[in-house]
C-alpha cells in the first residue's frame, strides 16, 4: 500500500499534465521501485491514480521493457546483446549467467537475488560487453568478472 504522502506525491505529479495518463509511466516506475515489480496491488493503485483500467495499464507494462509485470530478483541484471556487445561475447555471457544463476533468462534465481535478461544497446559500446545491474553500469565483462558480479549480487541479497 502507498503511504498517504506517496499517494499525494503521485497525485500531484499526475495533475501536472493535460491528461492524467501522461503520468502513468512515472507512477508505474515509482510503484515498481517500491514493490519490486508491478503486482496486482501496484496496478490497482496505478489505476486509481491515472484513470486507466488494469488492462490499459497492462498495455503499457507489456510494451515497455523496463517495467516488470512478474516478480524479479532483487537485482535485475540486463546484459546488452546488441551488435558491439554481441561481437564482444554477449551470447556467451548470457549462457554463463543462466548457468551461474540456475535460472533461465527472465526468471528469478532460486535465492531471489537476481534475474538476468538480455537488453538493447545501453550506450556503453566503448566498454563492451556491458550490462546494467539494477541502475549500476558494468563494462568490460568476461566470464570471470560476470561470475564475481553475480556472486556479489547474491551476497547483497543474503545480507
Amino acid at each position, binding site marked *: 500500500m502507498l503511504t498517504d504522502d506517496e499517494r499525494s506525491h503521485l497525485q500531484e505529479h499526475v495533475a501536472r499534465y493535460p491528461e492524467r495518463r501522461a503520468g502513468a509511466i512515472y507512477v508505474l516506475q515509482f510503484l515498481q521501485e517500491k514493490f519490486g515489480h508491478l503486482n496486482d496491488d501496484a496496478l490497482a493503485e496505478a489505476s486509481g491514480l491515472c484513470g486507466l*483500467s488494469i*488492462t*490499459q*495499464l*497492462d*498495455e503499457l507494462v*507489456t510494451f515497455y521493457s523496463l517495467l516488470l509485470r512478474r516478480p524479479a530478483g532483487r537485482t535485475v541484471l540486463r546484459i546488452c546483446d546488441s551488435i558491439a556487445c554481441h561481437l564482444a561475447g554477449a551470447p556467451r555471457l548470457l549462457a554463463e549467467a543462466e548457468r551461474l544463476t540456475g535460472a533461465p533468462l527472465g526468471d528469478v534465481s532460486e535465492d531471489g537475488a537476481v534475474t538476468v535478461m538480455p537488453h538493447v544497446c545501453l550506450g556503453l559500446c566503448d566498454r563492451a560487453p556491458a550490462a546494467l545491474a539494477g541502475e549500476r553500469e558494468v563494462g568490460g565483462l568476461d566470464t570471470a568478472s560476470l561470475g564475481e558480479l553475480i556472486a556479489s549480487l547474491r551476497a547483497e541479497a543474503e545480507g
Partner: protein
Amino acid sequence: MGTFYLDDQAIPFDDGDNVIEAAWAAGVAIPHFCYHPALGSVGACRLCMVELQPAGEGDRPRTLAACMLKAQDGMRLSLEAQRAVAARQSVIELVLANHPHDCPVCDAAGECHLQNMTVAVGPAYRRYEGTKRTFVNQFLGPLIWHDMDRCITCYRCVRYYQDYTLGTDLGALGSRNRVYFGRATDGPLESPFAGNLVEVCPTGVFTDKVFRRHYSRVWDLQTAPSICPHCSVGCNTLPGARAGTLRRVTHRPNQRVNEWFICDRGRFGHRYTESPQRPLRARIDGHEDELVDVLDAVSERLADAQGVVAGLGSVREDMEGNAALRSLMAAMGGWYSAHASPDLEAAIAEAAAASDAAPTLAEIADAGAALVVGDLTGQAPMMDLAVRQVVRAGHPLIVLHSVPAALAAHAVQALSLAPSELAMALTTLRRRIEKPKSRANATLKAVSETLAQAQRPVVLGVAETLGAAGCRALAQLAQAAKARLAFALPGANAFGTALLSRPGDAERVLRSVESGEADSLIVLGSDPFGSDPGAARWRATRSRLKLLVVLDCVATETARQADAFIPLAALAERAGTFVNYGGLAQGFTQVYARQETLPDPYTAVSELGHMVGLARIRRNAEILAYKYLDRPPQPGRTGIQVEPGAYTHLRASAEADFKQVASPSGRWQAALMTWYGDGPLAAFAPELSTLAPSRAACIAPGQGGKADPPEGVTVRLRGPLGELSLPLRYEPACAKDAVGLDRAAMAALGVSEGEGVEWEPQP
C-alpha cells in the same frame, strides 16, 4: 471536390476523402484489413498499398497506403503497378507466415476477410519455413471464443473496443510479432457490444461462441433480412438458420438505423427459439392438442361466453398481430389495448407524439452535446453506443439517472434523482433555459448552461422510467433547448402499438376485466400476470376470468396460467412489421420454418375470427396495420417513415390527461434496474443470462442514519401485491431514497417505477 485516377479510371471525391473511401464509393474495392468504415484509417496493415505516379520531373513513383492518402485532384494512382502488387502480396505472405491455416476447422471460414484477401491478392502458396509464433488463448466469457494464433495484428478489435465503444478491458498487450489482444486476466468481456468483435475481426480470432455450440458452415445457413425484436431501435439483422433451427444472428448494415453494429442482446438473445422451455404445442385445459382443435375449442368458448371479451396486445409483437387482435375485438364488441399498464400506455403515447423528428443513431452520434435521462444501456443499448460517439468527439454528456447507469461514468455532469423527481428536474431545466435567471440548484444550473451553449444538442429519455409526465417535461425541455429528441421505448414495436391505440384503452380493458364485464381475455405476446409493467392490477383479476387465451412464442407466467395456449412462430420464423422509436416502419421476413406448425399472430387471430364467424378480420387487420404507411415496408429495403398524419392522432392521445403518478407513500421508491441482456425473449438465452447481474435490492450507502446495514444482508421488501426477500447491495450511483429492483422483483411486489416500497433488514 475533384477527380483522381486509379489505373486510368476517373474517381470523383469530396474534400477530405481518402483514396480508399472515394474508390469504394465508386465501386472499386481496394484490398485492406485494418481500414473499417466505422473505425477509420490507421495505416497498420499496409495491404491497401497503391503506387503514386510521379507528379513532377525527377520524382520517383512510390507506394502509399490508400487508407491514409488524402485524395487530390489530378492524382494518378495505380493498384496494378508491379510495385503495388508486390507490396500487397508481401503483406499477405507475411501475415500468413504465422497463420495456422486451419480454415477446415475455423468457424470464420466462408466469411473470413483474410481468406477473401488472400484469394484476391495472392500469393497462393507459402514459402515461409520458419517457426510460427503461437499463443495461449483466454476465456473471454460465454459469448466470444478466442483463438490468437489466427491473428494478423490489424488492431481492429482494440480500436473498436476501446476507441469506438469506450471499453477498457480488452487491450493490445506485448509488442513486435507477439502483440496479444486480450484482457489483463481471463474473464467475460464487459462491454454490451463485445459481440461485434466477431464481425469486426477479419480473421477467426474472435468468433461466436454460442453459434459454435451448434455449428453450421455459413454457406449452409438460410438467411433473410430481419429486424431485431429486443428493443425499440430496430437494428437490422440477418438471422442464420439451418435444418429448422436458428443458429445465430449477425448485423445487416443500414446507415439509417444501426449502421454497422448490433448489441449483444440482439446478437445472442435469439436463443429463446431453441430453448427447451419453448412452448411448441397448443394446449387446452392443461393438455396438448392440435392447433386447429384448440382454436376450435376457444372459438366455442368465446361464442358461449356470458361477458364481453377483452384483448391485450404487446409492444413486442408486430403491427399485423396487434392489428388483427384489435380488429377481432372491435368485431366482437370487446375491448382492446396494446398495453397492460395505463401508465406505460400514456408514457409511450406522449413519447411517440414528440418523436416526429427523432434523430437516427448516426445523428445522435453527431450531436454537439447529449442529455440522457434514465438507464439507456439496458433499454436501448445501441442508443447508448451512439451516445458514446458524442463522448468520443469530446462533447459533453449529461446523465440523469435513478439507478447506476453505465453512461454516467463518461458524463461531465451526472445527477442521481429518484424516479418521482425526474419530471420536476426536467421542468426546472427547461425554465432555466427559457429564463436564464430562474432558480435552480448549482448542478442544474451547470447542466442548463451546457445545454444552452451546445451546437446540435440531443436529448434522450427512457420512456418507461420517465412516465408520461416525464416524457412531456423532456419534450418541452428539448424544444426550449432546440435539441433533437428521442425516447427509448419499451419494446420493438412500442411506437407501432401507440399508433394502434386510443387514449384510455388500457384503463378501459382493465376496468372491464376488474368489473367482471369482460370474463374472457386474449393475450398476445405479453405477460400481465407475470412481470410486465402493470402486472400489479392485472394479477388481481385472474380469478375473475373464465377464459384466458394466450398466444406467445415464449413460456411466460401468463402462458403458464392460460386455459388455452397457442404457440406462435418466433420472430425470425415469420414475416411482420415493427415501427421503431423514430416512427420508421421496417419489415422482417421469414428466415426459416420449424418442423412444428407455428402460426404468426396475424394468421392465428384471423383464423380465430373466422371460426367465430367473423370473416373480415384479416382484411381489417391489414388495413389497420399499414394505415399510416403508403405500403407495407419491404424486408431488406429502407423502412418507411410513418406519415405525419399519424402524429396528429398520437398528439391527440398525448394531450389527453394522464393519471398523475401518485407521490410515493413512505420514503422509498422503486427504481427499475435492468441490463443490456434483459428482456422477455432474451431471458431465455442461457449463455447471455449467465452474465446477468446477481439479484439484489440496491441502495446508495449512507442513508441508514446511525449505521448502514452490512452489504449482503437479506432484506424483506413489501409492496401492494406481496413480499420478497433479496440481498442488499450498495451502489453509490443509486439516487437517494430509491431502491433499485429488477423487473421480476417489481412485479412480485406490485410496484412500478416511482411507487413506494418498504424494506427492512432481516435479523
